[in-house]
């Protein structure tokens, strides 16, 4: 008998089981506590779906009906295209009904007054629980199984299911939250609709005023943010290019050190650089005092405001520009430059007319990444913001500040989203138009020409100065954790470390340090999120690289787009989307994990696509020809060969889960507090010593973890000849 029926039986059994056994609604104390099993009979709110429906929740009747229809179809119709078509329809209907009933009936009855007038009162319902979620998956599987029976994608049910589930997940965790921001803009806090808030905010001069150009006051926050992002992007691109040139085309002696510097900002909690800058260049900062003592000038508070944010951002994002540009600078074919020099152009002319234009797409790419990163940055403006702030902090304070105006947050988020998405689109268009045209000739054995002297001298000077500055800033960070009171009392002390990470041994081991709680939560969540991110990312990468299905380009674009959504926007959209039924996750660890997975997934996808491009498709074909299905091929052939990409994705998502702040700060709760959010609280309260001690520990932990991962990657490469053993 065929596989179509077998898998249909399997999910049907699952659906019936979850209707009869799993609690339909969310359990307050948490599903995984399993405390609900004992109380199940006594408390109607814990009953499974079938019993809820019998007890009079008529909104569940269609669900039962649909499951019964599927069972009937299985018993009466043979597998084939006709049944497949019906299965798809039933699956779509089921999902649609879950969405409709979930969104329209809230905790206190109808969510919309209109429905109440039409249909009368209804009892409120809690959020979806295990039963409802499993049934949603069941309907999703119906769609893919039905499509497989119809013969889509050669009837490959595994690929179809993967695609359907990914689309479902992305819809729920990326698009639904973004949508709820915009509906939130039109709602009062009790849920009724009003356009008043949006009307009040959309033309607010505090956002759009251009009066700084005419000298009549400050400019609106949108223009300030745009201006800052343009400045940051220009500076990081220039510096990144300088670093890349020095690393590839000069005899600069510390090239390895340069590479090391590029890793540092990636593993630094985001506001730490800002903090170190205030200690260095603030009004009573160390460097400021040195300069004031030497020159007698009064430098004042220039650091607070856009200048300071700009400096901190350039420090943080230059390495990213460097990483983007180094590939491009190395990739420019020496053959072209040699040709130019053979044609008697001087070194300077060659550099200006040949090398630089060939780097243009890389420069554009670096510029746009700098632009997006600056727009999305939250930590540095929070520490150095002065009174004005930028879009991301304004969004934050319009939600948590005493003004508490979700519609303002939504308007600001839309503005920010507009800027970053335009940049993202511009980047896509530019690169798709240019990249192939500029990749030069093939097969050259030559080495890159050295930089012309008139470029080399200033570039090396700039790089050396900037590296020195970066080193000083990081030395500051380390040092700040060990002194008693920064700026006043520089006695060395371990007090901050003891307060944060103290352990007492009386009466058994006790974690007395104040940081332990958030530290363990952070580690747990990062360790859970990292494999999930890598898994989802690589699976998606595999689908994009290896499968052909309609809408693939749109699918890939939608995934990549989430990279351009700033963290603040993600955070607030998650709060708005997941605080109320049908899906309620605020205050849980789950919401943090989901946020990390879907925020960092694009990097896993890219890594997967790139790595898969290096594997010859003949490998998959051989496996398929030998009778393995695509799931088995992925598991036994592709994955073992992808181990470096897997590890890279793991490292990235682990590090990002620890260092990100902008989304996290909205999602932490009393029970699940994250390290970065805790450190921001310390900074707000002026507890710089402990904040810096904690950050240093985080940096060391991340270096250790990255080291472990890199060790693993290295080992694998060495063992490559013994492939069977390495794969085991």
């Amino acid at each position, binding site marked *: 008998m065929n596989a179509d029926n077998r898998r249909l039986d399997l999910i049907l059994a699952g659906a019936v089981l979850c209707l009869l056994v799993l609690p339909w609604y969310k359990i307050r104390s948490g599903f*995984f506590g399993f405390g609900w099993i004992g109380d199940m009979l006594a408390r109607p709110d814990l009953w499974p779906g079938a019993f809820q429906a019998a007890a009079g929740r008529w909104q569940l009747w269609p669900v039962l009906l649909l499951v019964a229809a599927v069972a009937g179809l299985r018993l009466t119709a043979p597998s084939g295209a006709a049944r497949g078509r019906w299965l798809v329809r039933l699956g779509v209907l089921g999902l649609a009904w879950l969405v409709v009933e979930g969104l329209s009936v809230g905790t206190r009855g109808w969510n919309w007054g209109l429905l109440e007038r039409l249909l009368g009162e209804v009892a409120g319902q809690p959020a979806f629980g295990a039963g409802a979620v499993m049934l949603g998956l069941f309907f999703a599987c119906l769609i893919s199984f039905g499509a497989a029976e119809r013969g889509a994608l050669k009837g490959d049910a595994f690929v179809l299911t993967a695609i359907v589930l990914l689309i479902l997940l992305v819809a729920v965790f990326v698009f639904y939250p973004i949508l709820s921001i915009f509906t939130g803009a039109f709602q009062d806090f009790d849920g009724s609709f009003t356009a008043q808030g949006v009307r009040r905010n959309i033309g607010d001069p505090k956002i759009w005023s251009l009066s700084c150009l005419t000298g009549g*006051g400050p400019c609106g926050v949108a223009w300030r943010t745009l201006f800052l992002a343009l400045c940051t992007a220009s500076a990081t691109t220039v510096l990144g290019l300088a670093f890349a040139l020095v690393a590839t085309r000069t005899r600069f002696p510390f090239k390895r050190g340069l590479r090391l510097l590029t890793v540092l900002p990636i593993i630094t909690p985001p506001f730490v650089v800002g903090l170190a800058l205030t200690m260095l260049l603030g009004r009573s900062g160390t460097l400021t005092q040195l300069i004031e003592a030497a020159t007698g000038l009064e430098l004042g508070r220039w650091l607070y405001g856009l200048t300071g944010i700009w400096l901190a951002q350039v420090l943080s994002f230059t390495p990213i520009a460097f990483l983007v540009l180094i590939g491009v600078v190395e990739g420019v074919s020496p053959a072209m430059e040699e040709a130019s020099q053979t044609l008697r152009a001087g070194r300077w002319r060659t550099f200006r007319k040949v090398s630089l234009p060939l780097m243009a797409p890389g420069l554009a790419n670096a510029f746009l990444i700098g632009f997006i990163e600056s727009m999305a940055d939250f930590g540095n403006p929070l520490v150095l913001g002065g009174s004005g702030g930028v879009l991301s902090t304004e969004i934050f304070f319009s939600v948590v500040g*005493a003004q508490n105006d979700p519609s303002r947050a939504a308007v600001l988020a839309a503005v920010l989203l507009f800027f970053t998405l335009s940049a993202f689109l511009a980047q896509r268009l530019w690169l798709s138009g240019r990249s192939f045209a500029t990749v030069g000739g093939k097969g050259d054995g030559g080495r890159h020409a050295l930089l012309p002297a008139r470029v080399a001298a200033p570039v090396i000077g700039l790089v050396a100065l900037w590296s020195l500055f970066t080193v000083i800033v990081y030395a500051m960070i380390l040092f700040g954790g060990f002194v008693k*009171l920064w700026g*006043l009392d520089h006695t060395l002390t371990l007090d901050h470390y003891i307060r944060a990470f103290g352990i007492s041994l009386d009466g058994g081991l006790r974690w007395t340090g104040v940081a332990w709680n958030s530290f363990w939560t952070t580690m747990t969540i990062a360790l859970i999120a990292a494999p999930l991110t890598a898994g989802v990312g690589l699976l998606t990468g595999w689908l994009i690289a290896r499968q052909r299905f309609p809408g693939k380009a749109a699918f890939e674009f939608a995934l990549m787009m989430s990279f351009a959504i700033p963290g603040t926007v993600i955070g607030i959209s998650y709060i708005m989307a997941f605080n109320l039924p049908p899906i309620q996750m*605020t205050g849980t660890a789950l919401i943090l994990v989901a946020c990390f997975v879907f925020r960092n997934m694009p990097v896993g996808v890219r890594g997967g696509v790139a790595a898969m491009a290096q594997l010859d498709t003949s490998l998959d074909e051989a496996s398929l020809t030998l009778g393995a299905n695509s799931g088995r091929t992925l598991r036994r052939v592709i994955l073992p060969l992808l181990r470096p990409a897997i590890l890279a994705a793991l490292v990235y998502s682990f590090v990002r889960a620890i260092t990100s702040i902008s989304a996290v700060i909205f999602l932490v709760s009393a*029970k699940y*507090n994250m390290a970065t959010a805790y450190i921001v609280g310390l900074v707000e309260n002026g507890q710089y010593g402990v904040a810096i001690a904690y950050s240093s520990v985080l940096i060391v932990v991340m270096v250790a973890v990255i080291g472990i991962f890199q060790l693993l990657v290295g080992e694998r490469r060495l063992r490559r000849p013994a492939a069977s053993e390495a794969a085991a």
Partner: protein
Amino acid sequence: MKITTTAAVAGTALLPAFAAGAAELNLICSADVVICEKLVTEFERAHSDIGVNMVRLSSGEAYAKIRAEARNPQTDLWWGGTGDPHLQAAADGLTVEYQSPRLSELHDWAVAQAETSGHRTVGVYSGALGWGYNTRIFEAKGLEEPACWADLLNPDLQGEIQMADPNSSGTAYTALATLVQLMGEDEAFDYLKQLNANVAQYTKSGSAPVRAAGRGEAGLGIVFMHDAVAQTVEGFPIRTIAPCEGTGYEVGSMSLVEGGPNPDEAVVFYDWVLGAEVQDLMPEAGSYQLPSNKAAVASEHAPDLGQVKLIDYDFAEYGSSDRRRALLARWDSEIGGRATD
């Protein structure tokens, strides 16, 4: 194989962290983080059967969070922070009416706070508004000690003053309301407009101005006096001033959240924290406010409110949301965001 085994072991080891505990309490704490942590440690020592999940949020943030979660509260108890947002939450029906058996042990101002709100909140500490200035900076610049509100308008203080933004900080709202009650509304806004010339930055957090002053990033911060004293005790060159014209004060409050998941545990904490023996411990954590229990002893460093000229602060009027919204809107349009950045 090895990796998966390790992952599985790690996974099982981590599971208990996600299992629900026996009894727990979700607490929002709006005081200094050290005080918050002290409270939690002491409570867990006294009630080992209840685990406390604490998050520190400024009073504005806390009010916003409780309001945002109104349809589905995640918090049980909200301790500390200026009284106004507590009163506003009470007026919005976000908090529960409760009369602790310890109510009779409390000072009159704490009971008055409870009565104003219909017993939906209660006073836990009190402190007067003032400022702290950096003596080193003032000496170096040859400035005189500013003893009155009027002295803050001295043009020599340009760029030296910090205060918080009343939109995000309860402290700054108390300052705004105090000035309005002291001078009259129009005069108060005139004053603030003139003061604006001297203000370097409106911070988001209430106590941040005096911390900046302590580190020399600013000359003077308008804050609650107990926050300024805390800086002095920590070793910063800060002197605390009570304004000569008179000043307002806060009643730090506590409220039970309506519909919170653990109401019984919340009541246990509520009664516990009003006790004299608990409030006696607060100075150890650097809290220099006046405790609300009559039997509790304030820190020796705490500013003596007997020496401070206090105005008759109208908590009912200035805690009401209409008045608050109107004042904040006026502050926004006339003062906010015009600071020399």
